[in-house]
């Protein structure tokens, strides 16, 4: 690029991202169908043609699973969908999920060279297209599976970490069994992320494709309770165990009124709506359809909950977050969608009490205003309370989406496994090895609540260690 080009605004077509066609906000806030429709072939061709095909691609370095991004985009630009799918499936077990839920702006897209002068390549949108193509044309793909090596691996949890590890190990010839505590596999992909962001049939089809690689899925089996890891290894003959049990213990704010009727953890609210299908007529699971719903938090889960509330019929869905929008950990696309859908953002605002009526039903949240001070350990500016700034937000449902702590069931019941003071399992970030021989861990149970793709990266790395240690 010449110096001259740098000074000009990005009028060049190459710098403009192909827009994603989407359901209109006023229409979609009353249904649970997916918001983006996905690129058509023509849009894929245009977007793929923008890629600079860098020799040293920064995007790949930004991907926790190291997807060969320029390679699959090149195939797309040349209209070779099958080849694109082949490349993508070899490095990423769950592309149609990643294309939808990864925080691309902080990873691949955030590092894209085009982004310096214009808009980054829409890697996520392209990945989604290829992932969907691969699901619909799985018979055309050549997934190499090595002959059985005679070793048995147990995977605890069927969320993103577990599914990825299972896929990698099955391809390597291991006999893999996934144990899932709930009645449906998928972990957070099923109980947490709503239909309008990640349709459940996609998760099901990804799990079916693992089953085609002869991965066994055992539902309703709570490792730590139904059997301990030690029993699975000693009595059931598993040679290795990968723990990807997630951060399944919601945090509350410990403020007065938090046990009032209509106060939900985001996990409970989303589980009722997603896993238990409370949004459907034939479900027996009730959910309080608040008219005015306050969601506390600024992450993806908070956005999911606030947007679910609208779809369940709320007149007003309000986000309360103690920092500013810049500090919100949610994906930019989710924040953007939430704004489009008319969700109120009450920023720099923190609840101090939940007020209930005499029967115990929520009637308002009492909040204080906050101001940002110096950056804290996370690099985000630390919020302080503004004295005398108390005010009330009337509402009938409050959803607490301030994160999760690690689930205690496995740390409590597994001998010789080292656990941090926060209750997470200690495992190497590089290889997933824990203090216990042949036991590996990854995802939220190690890091605390994080993202789908980081969990997948951890699952992939742990699988590599298992291959190294057992073969």
């Amino acid at each position, binding site marked *: 690029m010449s110096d001259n080009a740098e000074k000009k605004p990005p009028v060049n077509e190459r710098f403009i991202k192909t827009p994603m066609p989407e359901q209109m906000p006023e229409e979609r806030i009353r249904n649970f169908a997916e918001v983006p429709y996905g690129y058509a072939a023509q849009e894929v061709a245009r977007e793929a043609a923008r890629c600079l095909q860098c020799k040293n691609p920064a995007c790949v370095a930004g991907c926790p699973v190291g997807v060969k991004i320029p390679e699959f985009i090149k195939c797309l630009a040349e209209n070779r969908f099958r080849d694109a799918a082949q490349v993508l499936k070899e490095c990423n077990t769950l592309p149609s999920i990643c294309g939808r839920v990864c925080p691309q702006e902080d990873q691949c897209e955030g590092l894209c060279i085009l982004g310096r002068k214009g808009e980054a390549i829409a890697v996520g949108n392209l990945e989604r297209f290829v992932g969907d193509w691969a699901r619909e044309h799985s018979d055309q793909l050549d997934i190499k599976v090595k002959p059985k090596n005679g070793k048995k691996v147990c995977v605890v949890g069927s969320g993103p970490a577990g599914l990825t590890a299972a896929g990698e190990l099955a391809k390597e010839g291991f006999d893999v069994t996934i144990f899932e*505590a709930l009645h449906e596999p998928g972990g957070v992909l099923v*109980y947490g992320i709503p239909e309008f962001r990640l349709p459940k049939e996609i998760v099901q089809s990804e799990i079916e494709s693992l089953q085609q690689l002869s991965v066994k899925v055992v539902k309703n089996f709570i490792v730590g309770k*139904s059997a301990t890891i030690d029993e699975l290894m000693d009595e059931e003959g598993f040679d290795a165990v990968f723990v990807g049990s997630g951060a399944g213990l919601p945090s509350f704010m410990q403020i007065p009124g938090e*046990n009032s009727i209509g106060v939900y953890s985001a996990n409970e609210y989303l589980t009722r709506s997603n896993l238990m299908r409370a949004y459907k007529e034939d479900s027996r699971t009730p959910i309080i359809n608040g008219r005015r719903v306050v969601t506390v938090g600024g992450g993806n889960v908070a956005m999911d909950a606030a947007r679910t509330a609208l779809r369940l019929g709320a007149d007003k869905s309000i986000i309360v977050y103690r920092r500013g929008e810049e500090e919100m950990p949610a994906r930019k696309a989710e924040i953007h969608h939430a704004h489009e859908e008319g969700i109120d953002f009450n920023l720099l605002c923190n609840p101090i009490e939940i007020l209930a009526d005499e029967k115990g039903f929520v009637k308002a949240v009492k909040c204080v205003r906050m101001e940002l001070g110096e950056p804290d350990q996370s690099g985000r500016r630390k919020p302080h309370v503004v004295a005398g700034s108390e005010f009330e937000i009337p509402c009938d449902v409050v959803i607490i989406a301030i994160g999760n702590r690690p*689930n205690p069931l496995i740390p409590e019941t597994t001998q010789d496994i080292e656990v941090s003071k926060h209750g997470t399992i200690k495992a190497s970030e590089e290889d997933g090895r824990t203090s216990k021989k042949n036991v590996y861990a990854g995802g939220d149970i190690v890091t605390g609540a994080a993202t789908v793709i980081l969990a997948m990266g951890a699952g992939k790395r742990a699988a590599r260690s298992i291959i190294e240690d057992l073969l």
Partner: protein
Amino acid sequence: MTQILKKEQLSEQVYRFRIDAPHIAKRRKAGQFIMVRANNHSERLPLTIANASKDDGWIEIIFQTIGASTTELGLLNEGEHVSDLAGPLGKPTHIENFGRALCIGGGVGIAPLYPIVTALKEAGNDVSTIIGARNKGLLILEQEMQAQSHKLFVATDDGSYGQKGFVSDIFKQLLAEGQKFDFCVVIGPAPMMKATTVLTVGAGIKTFASLNPIMIDGTGMCGGCRVTVFGETKFACVDGPEFDAAGIDWDSMLKRLGSYREFEQKAKDKHICQLGTEQ
């Protein structure tokens, strides 16, 4: 796994299912529960294990058909399968030889009390048991309790069987007689547990109550079953279901139990209505 080996109706609305579940039978301890779903539309129901045989690989659950999902469960027959069954969940009852143990059960809560009575007896305790129900027809497990308890007392609200009155009335009498107990477990409807434990705790007896809050997953994931114990938020599924009754915030728990009363009634009415048309 999950097949109903035996179905019995214990009273008008109360059923006992023996379910093939070798894994759970092998590991379960007194006080633990399972999650069960009758079919694909049903809710996940937490039910305390009422009995089990490690050797024969079955567990028993006893439940009352109150809402739509328990009604659906009650409609299943011998030989059929429940759609989902997971467990054993929760922390087991702490069992040791306390000396004189008192077990108090009300209504369908008598069922989860049974394995605790058995375990306390096996541990060498002198076990007195008080069971109660609204009327004779709703009283369950009298014979079983008789066999496992050193002394059994029975009350019905309407006096149709045993002594007229509440289980708490019998406790008051025992107290008046100067009887002493070293340990007490109370299981039943929340208002009964509140009323009874106030008395036992008041009499200086270490008392545990097995709580039955609204629960979805049973593994700690949703936090719906949270209760306040000694001012702290606890999850009944992973921290309980039994808690020291001296610290339980009963009023908050009683309110939360009413969260979905309206929905439940509607769902049940609708369900019964649909059943009517099917027939």
